[in-house]
């Protein structure tokens, strides 16, 4: 159980970090569309078009690291060897 929790914590932390880096390491909130600035040739007006694209924000990284930390802490409570009694003798 301890190993499973530790492995899950590492996977989740690495996954959220990788997702954030892979989608552009955006410093703001998560986006599901990205603004693309364009210019109308005749009028010279600039306008924005939105491309559907997922960009992971800092809250995804924060949530991933929080879950990973919680799993890491939880793993400390599993698999502990019971303390040997003080008067135990070795035969």
């Amino acid at each position, binding site marked *: 159980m301890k190993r499973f929790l530790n492995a899950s914590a590492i996977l989740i932390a690495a996954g959220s970090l990788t997702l954030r880096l892979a989608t552009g390491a955006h*410093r*703001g*909130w*998560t*986006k*599901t*569309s*990205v*603004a693309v600035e364009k210019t*109308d040739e*005749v*009028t*010279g*007006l*600039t*306008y*924005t*078009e*939105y491309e559907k694209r997922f*960009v992971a*924000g*800092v809250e995804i990284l924060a949530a991933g690291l929080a879950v990973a930390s919680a799993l890491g802490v939880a793993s400390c409570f599993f698999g502990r060897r019971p303390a040997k009694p003080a008067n135990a003798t070795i035969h």
Partner: protein
Amino acid sequence: MTLTPTPLALLLCTSLALTAAAGQQSFDFKDPKGVNNAAFRLDAPLEAISGTANGVSGTITYDPENPASLHGKIVIAAASLHVPNPMMKEHLHGEQWMDSKKHPEITFESTKVSNVKTAGNETTADVTGKFTLRGVTKEITVPVKLTYLKDKLGARSNGQMQGDLLVVRSKFTIKRSDYGINPGAPADNVADEIELTLSLAGAALKS
């Protein structure tokens, strides 16, 4: 002595009125290309809240020979407001913020034009009008830059239509507290000032 209008005087008055109005054109700002837009920006922690609205319509009557006679109304569909974060967008259209279902239109209707300066086909002016947002109407004065593009509609419509274009640019700031936009949100979390940038082009068809 009483003055009685003679047919000649009436004809003269009518022709003078027609001459005065001849230069006036009505520009339609409904834009199927989706170029016309209003961009907004509010400072906020981590990242500014910025987005656009492209549901623009309305008409402006403009005379390139007499820019001060400009008058008209621009309407922006509140439902077309867009921000890239889906949760933020939901909040933006919600009751606390824009309440888009209850107040579907954002409008500006001009009442006065002042400080008009023209150079070539470009005119700058201060336009005073009634600005309605979230059901609250206030009189505001905004700086406007107008560019009159004669016979340029054909270039924009691949020759399908002929006519003139009127480009309107304006950048101004309003306070969200003036319009009851989420008054519960403290200004140190989300700025009270909303920066608005209008980029619009209207078309006047020639028959």
